[in-house]
């Protein structure tokens, strides 16, 4: 988290929220330093998401556990959604075609909520022709929230030096070996979202009513918030259900990433143009 935040601050120096795509193009094509920092930001964020996810899975797979207060658990429950929001907002802030489409999908999902949908859309994403609001949430609101939640959950302010070295080192190596790119406009017929949302994209493709997906996610979140306070049998059942759902989502992600082509049709990876 700290690596992602530090690299994010450095990246903000050259990132232009009014012309996000163009500023990233200039970074990628003529600024080795900023390209490197962007790589670290990207990979440290990915590691943050993966490690957070693994930590959750680890905790969920354990039976029972220590009883904690409702407020403490509520804070924990908000960590994963906040991380996911940080990730998707960062993806949208690229401003390339994939980013714009991801923004549209998110806006569409929020818009399905009756009565509050448009308000939520405005509060979270802002106007459709500006990145100002989502940028604000990415660098300030959500970042501050995740820092607070993580510090309270981990009960420490500074990270362990050794972990910091590993994460920073791995992010640096990944940055130089797999420099994250931008999607050229119009080059791909079939644009996919970030890997962690490809499963959702797959479900959206099959589901005629996106509202059900939004409601399902909200119900799952509420259940998760209530998890430690439910009877042990129900808690275990829900945990099992969550692990199974995560597995299905992983399968959908793999299918979406590697086995779909144009028009969302099944296509083998080597058969795609």
């Amino acid at each position, binding site marked *: 988290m700290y690596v992602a935040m530090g690299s994010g601050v450095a990246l903000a120096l050259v990132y232009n929220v009014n012309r996000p795509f163009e500023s*990233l193009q200039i970074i990628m094509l003529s600024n080795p330093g900023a390209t*490197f920092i962007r790589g670290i930001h990207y990979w440290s964020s990915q590691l943050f998401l993966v490690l957070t996810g693994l930590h959750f899975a680890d905790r969920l797979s354990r039976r029972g556990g220590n009883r904690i207060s409702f407020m403490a658990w509520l804070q924990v429950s908000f960590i994963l959604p906040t991380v996911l929001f940080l990730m998707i907002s960062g993806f949208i802030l690229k401003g390339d075609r994939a980013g714009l489409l991801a923004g549209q999908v998110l806006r569409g999902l929020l818009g399905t909520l009756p009565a509050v949908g448009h308000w939520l859309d405005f509060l979270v994403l802002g106007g459709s022709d500006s990145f100002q609001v989502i940028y604000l949430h990415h660098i300030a609101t959500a970042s501050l929230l995740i820092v607070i939640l993580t510090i309270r959950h981990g009960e420490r302010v500074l990270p362990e030096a050794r972990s910091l070295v590993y994460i920073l080192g791995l992010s640096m*190596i990944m*940055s130089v070996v797999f420099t994250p790119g931008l999607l*050229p406009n119009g080059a791909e017929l079939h644009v996919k979202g970030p890997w962690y949302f490809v499963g959702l994209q797959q479900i959206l493709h099959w589901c005629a009513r996106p509202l059900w997906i939004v409601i399902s996610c909200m119900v799952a979140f509420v259940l998760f918030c209530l998890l430690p306070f439910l009877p042990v049998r129900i808690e275990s059942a829900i945990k099992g259900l969550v692990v199974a759902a995560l597995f299905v989502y992983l399968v959908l992600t793999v299918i979406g990433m590697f086995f779909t082509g144009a028009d969302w049709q099944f296509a083998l990876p080597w058969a795609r143009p």
Partner: protein
Amino acid sequence: MKTRGILKGFLPLLFGGMAIVASIWWFISAPNKGVKELPVIQGHREGCVVCHLPMTGFNSAHDPKAIGCASCHLGNTFTMDKGQAHKGMVLVPGNLAQVKRTCGTSKCHPLLAHRVRDTLMATGRGMVAVDRFVFGDTDSPIGGGNLSRLGSSPADDHLRKLCASCHLGKVKNNPRPIDALSRGGGCTACHLRYTKKAVDALEIYNHNRKVPDVHPSLSIEVTRDHCFGCHSRSGRISTSYEGWHEAEKYPEGVSHNPGYRILKDGRAFVRMSPDIHFQRGMDCIDCHTWQETMGDGKLHYHEEDQIEISCEDCHPLQRPDTITSSELREIDAKILKRRSVLQSIKRFVVASKTKGALLNVGLDAKGKLIVIGKNSGKIYHPKKPAPVCSNQISGHERLTCQSCHTPWAPNCIRCHTYYDRDAVALDHLSGRRVKGRWVEQRGGLLARQPALGIRFDGKKEIIDTFVPGMVITIDKSGFVRKQNGKRVRIFRRVFAPISAHTTAARGIDCKACHVNSVAMGLGEGLFSSKGGRLGKVKIRFRPLFPLRTEDGLPEDAWTGFLKEKGGTVSTRTNARPLSPAEQIKVIRVGVCLLCHLPTKKNIRRIYSDFPAALERIGPLCLTVETSASGHPH
């Protein structure tokens, strides 16, 4: 424990050190280091041009300064790393499999790129349907089909190994100048032009991998050479147009003989009379329109359905329909803007068949009908049709122009195809050499007048020109299992309509049809007469070629003399040879022509109203005994 402790402290240092070394190495070799200028192309920065400019050879519409490289060649424009930038690139953007993402994007040519994929040139639909029909796979020569999507039936295997290279849908992998061996490549098959400099640059690249700085141009100036590769085969209209007829066997010692031409594929051609339009310097695109070649948005099954032009559009009997430039469709107006040589046309003739504007045919400032060479800019003043073409003579209303103005067409009358399961052949679809080969043993390649037959053009029956589409035996025994121990052989005698592209300025004379068994579809032979009662004669026909055992007809015939030909007769469902009654009608005139030559006086007196003339024939005149029957020998 001590070692573990050391490792615990040492590993992060080692890992951190590795990361720092990797980062330093990356900074030293960063591909985007030192890049100063990043031109904005199509609203974004494009890294390709940093390395690949200057690149010359383009016209303004495809100048990389305007559209960059990735608009056509794809790849990743937002990296300076060569490997990353070239990932996903396409070498030949015109290939129809890619065209949605290249030429056919909404910013470029969405309409044409979409339409062209369904044209006959892209799919070979007619060819596939006829081949399957002839092989007995289907009951009709009309149907879908695509040379890019063939199965494994004998017909499809035959198409894969002999025909599937000639269609726009064929993927072209290696860029090279257009020549007689060029095949496929989608848009680039017609629109790519290699200048001498571009050829040299490509050769240098092929030898030492030096990146070319000259690109072949992308142009609407499609030359005859672009068409020649595919259209010198099958109906051979490209070679016929230039006055060449394929020799049956390769003649020895003729490589420097101006009467012969050896094509790059090794076939030898003999000099014949070229098409008058070729003699005047006209290119294929001077007649054929973009809508015919790139599609009008409709599915057509055969070439004659897709063609929108007709001879009368340039050689009208009456004043043609015209429109002004302001009435042109948007796409026509765009094309006109790019063809500066057409500016002297003030009103554009519309095609009588489709009412589409012919951009190089129209009226000049003085109201005179002109045709302008699209590539050459040469102005032509098309001749008016001769008086005889104005339907002066009753009974000729149904004749197409080419019925009289086609002095010769290639006729292939003897073909035997069999399957050699042990030989190896190239599968044009997969590009691999595979076991099993269709062997064509051909014979009887004749350059002669086409046969006349009847074709229903959707509104009425017309008389048109036909050649043997296939007089063929197909031995499928090697491919399929023998039936009851017998060979699986098919014999077909189907004629195909042809626009031979050998147009002569002067039409053939009356006898060339009325006393010509070839024109009547009987094949070569001699008519003779045997006297009858009261000046009536019985006409006999002796064919030159031997009779085929399969159907009892001469090898080169379409139908029998005064015999009704039933069953499968043509590669079209709407075509047939002359019926016995129609043959009698033709011969009846032919008998008169033997003495009463078609002078102006005789035309007026006899032939303009032939039934009336028959009423007043003299005692010395011969008339045809209608009950006469043919006795072929």
